[in-house]
């Protein structure tokens, strides 16, 4: 029984979703992607972990490229952060919006303890050995997590979110102005956090007398070591009594409480464990960047980590790791226009191949796309020659009209010349809004109209991409994170690897 099993296409009367989908669950995911997923499912988790750790640990031997090593280190730190957030959000179902404040707190704590930067001149605390500084930073962060969650334990889900978000705002307000902390006018002025500059010249880690100064390599190994320990610990925690209790809390706090679970204690524990993981990552980041600056620990970082957890699949340990890797690599790639272009067109093409069935329709859509673009290009070229005479961006300030790709795009899209020399060229702005409207309209129409609408939408997206977005990497990166959150939540809340959860009413 493989292909004959019918999949329910809509809600069935008299059978709730869970029952209606039982065949789907027994068979597991299908298609080529499904085969991979099933193969991974059969492999013991420990082996996957060992392969992953071995591969990452070997990256410095495979390439001496500092940039790639740096990206690998950043990714490892993001993986740690995403794993910590997953405990609170994915397992216990608590919306902890103060998470990056824990991360920042630990970074400041470590910088103060190890480098002697606290209280102007480091009279109070100076030059602690690294293990002690890291341990104290982690313990202090866990303690902070407890202190924050302790009073909020009475609050329902949304209130926890808002109180933790306030905590993040308070933290940002304090770190940005902490160089003139005046005890609210009641005492003298002290420099606690270094203000907007933050703490510079943070000492590197010292392990066994060696200073870790080969930054991108050494701290990747440190993060990887911590990751290995944490991954094993969290795997067992997930299977433990506490892990099951967390999931029960996520599904239904009231029922969990009625079963006699210490709901409040479980909430505290989830926030504190998350804070502890963030604390470990925080004590690495200061030493790795050799400075701690307050604009790292803001709402943007929070959204980034959330996008990683949601994309991978909240609640799935492997999922959040994959999510962190995808999101961080994607954000890096978007920095360079010529790389970003490949990602964009590849994503469009893969999306079409995966979503558009049968293949005749796919061919029709692709053919329609090419024809539509060429026709529009010809019309615009006849009316407004300058409109199709622009270059394409290949670097931060480099443009070209040469090469196969540039030629193809120039005959397919509309590229108004001098777009890149005039700031705020508004054609791209209007097109952005129109394409946004098309995308939303696409979700409303059904049947053949959808396929007809798809063609101008994709062409318009490419137009906006080439004329506006490709040179706006600093804005496009966060924009994309917002899109990931919205689209995933409304279409596939389980993310790539999370368990599909069915609400049983």
């Amino acid at each position, binding site marked *: 029984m493989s292909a004959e099993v019918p999949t329910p296409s809509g809600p069935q009367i008299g059978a709730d979703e869970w029952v209606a989908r039982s065949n789907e669950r027994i068979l597991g995911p299908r298609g080529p992607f499904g085969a991979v997923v099933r193969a991974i499912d059969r492999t013991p988790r420990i082996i996957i972990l060992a392969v992953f750790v071995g591969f990452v640990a070997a990256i410095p031997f495979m390439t001496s490229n500092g940039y790639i090593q740096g990206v690998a280190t950043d990714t490892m730190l993001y993986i740690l952060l995403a794993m910590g957030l997953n405990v609170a*959000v994915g397992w216990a*179902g608590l*919306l902890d*919006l103060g998470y990056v404040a824990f991360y920042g707190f630990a970074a400041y704590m470590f910088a103060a303890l190890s480098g002697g930067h606290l209280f102007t001149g480091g009279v109070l605390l100076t030059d602690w050995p690294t293990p002690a500084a890291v341990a104290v930073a982690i313990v202090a962060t866990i303690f902070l997590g407890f202190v924050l969650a302790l*009073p*909020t334990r*009475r*609050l*329902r*889900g*949304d*209130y926890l*979110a*808002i*109180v933790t*978000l*306030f*905590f993040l*705002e*308070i933290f940002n*307000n*304090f770190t940005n*102005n902490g160089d*003139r*902390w*005046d005890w*609210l*006018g009641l005492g003298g002025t002290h420099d606690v956090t270094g203000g907007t500059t933050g703490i510079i010249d943070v000492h590197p880690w010292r392990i066994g007398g060696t200073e870790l100064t080969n930054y991108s390599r050494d701290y990747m190994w440190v993060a990887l070591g911590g990751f290995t320990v944490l991954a094993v610990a969290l795997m067992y925690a997930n299977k433990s009594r506490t892990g099951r209790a967390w999931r029960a809390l*996520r*599904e239904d706090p*009231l029922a969990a409480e009625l079963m006699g679970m210490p709901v409040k204690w479980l909430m505290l524990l989830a926030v504190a464990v998350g804070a502890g993981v963030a604390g470990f990552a925080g004590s690495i980041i200061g030493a790795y960047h050799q400075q701690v600056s307050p604009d790292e620990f803001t*709402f943007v970082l929070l*959204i980034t980590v*959330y996008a990683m957890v*949601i994309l991978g699949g909240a609640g799935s340990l492997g999922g959040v790791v994959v999510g962190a890797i995808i999101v961080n690599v994607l954000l890096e790639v978007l920095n360079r226009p010529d790389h970003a272009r490949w990602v964009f067109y590849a994503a469009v093409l893969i999306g079409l191949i995966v979503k558009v069935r049968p293949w005749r329709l796919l061919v029709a859509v692709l053919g329609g796309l090419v024809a539509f673009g060429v026709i529009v290009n010809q019309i615009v070229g006849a009316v407004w020659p300058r409109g199709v005479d622009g270059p394409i961006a290949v670097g931060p300030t480099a443009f070209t009209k040469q090469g196969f790709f540039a030629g193809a795009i120039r005959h397919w899209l509309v590229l108004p010349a001098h777009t890149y020399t005039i700031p*705020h060229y508004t054609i791209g*702005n209007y097109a*952005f*809004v129109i394409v*946004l409207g098309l995308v*939303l309209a696409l*979700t409303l129409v059904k049947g053949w109209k959808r396929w007809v609408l798809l063609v101008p939408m994709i062409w318009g997206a490419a137009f906006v991409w080439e004329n*506006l*977005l490709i040179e706006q990497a600093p*804005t496009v990166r*966060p*924009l994309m*994170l*917002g*899109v*990931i*959150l*919205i689209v995933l*939540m*409304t*279409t596939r*809340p389980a993310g790539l690897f999370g368990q599909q*959860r069915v*609400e049983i*009413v």
Partner: protein
Amino acid sequence: MGGVLAFQLYDWHYFFAELMNGLTLGSLYALIALGYTMVYGVLKLLNFAHGDVFMIGCYIGWFVLTGLGGVLAPRVPLVPLLLLMFAAAMVGCGALNVAIERFAYRPLRNAPRIAPLITAIGVSFFIEQTAVLLWGANPRQYDFFELRNGTLFNPPAFTIGNLSVQYAQIFVITSAVFLMFALALFVSRTRTGKAMRAVSFDREAASMMGIDIDRVIMVTFLLGGVLAGAAGVMWGIVQSSFNPYTGFGVGLKAFTAAVVGGIGNIGGAMLGGILIGLAETFTAGYLTSTFQDLVVFSLLVAFMLIRPTGLRGAPVLQKV
């Protein structure tokens, strides 16, 4: 003796000016808080994106003002200009809010509680970054101070005894009170208002009584957006400037205003808004302006911990 008197006089002046600032800010918070509290009432959703809808209102007002010739040489007289700005912002924000509900929240009607919350954060972030993309991150302002020999209203202020009152502030407070009054009438007197109250009391029961839930939710978002749009233009008139990030911080405080007043309670949102506005202004005026947010948010956290149901909210009964 004279010196002491002068000091006291100065102080009283200062206090009154701060009071007026606080009331103005508070009525803006109250307008935005109404959107939060109504949405929370019908959907039990903390709509993070509401503050950003308000920010879009600031921009729409700015574009109408600039499109009609700007502050130095407006092509239409002052009153139609203001009416146009308000109308455009209210319609635009109402439509935006309805679109957000339709595309981002409606697919999640029956999802676990955390899913619409995360979506709301995503929407908020998306609107914010779209504004940065389209209009840049630099702050903008209405520049009303240059209109008509220096002010929007000429003369800019009148005096009662020794205290001067700015017309712009009076204007904002009056129109905010007018809008709130209109909303209160709508909710208490009309059929749709009754349906809104029913849905917020018990959604399932209301739906069994034949109330079109989706329509009620749409109207709620529309009203919230309209109020936020009006608040956006008012913000432009009385505050110095705004940028794409303004909405998030203001929205956060407005949401807390809704919580302080008792979430889901319309009168409470107005009360909470005024209280937060006063608390913020007096903190900045008397205690510390650097750590203003720190103090205000700490107070709010303390308040929410002591009395999570707010000043006027009823204790929450959890129904199964």
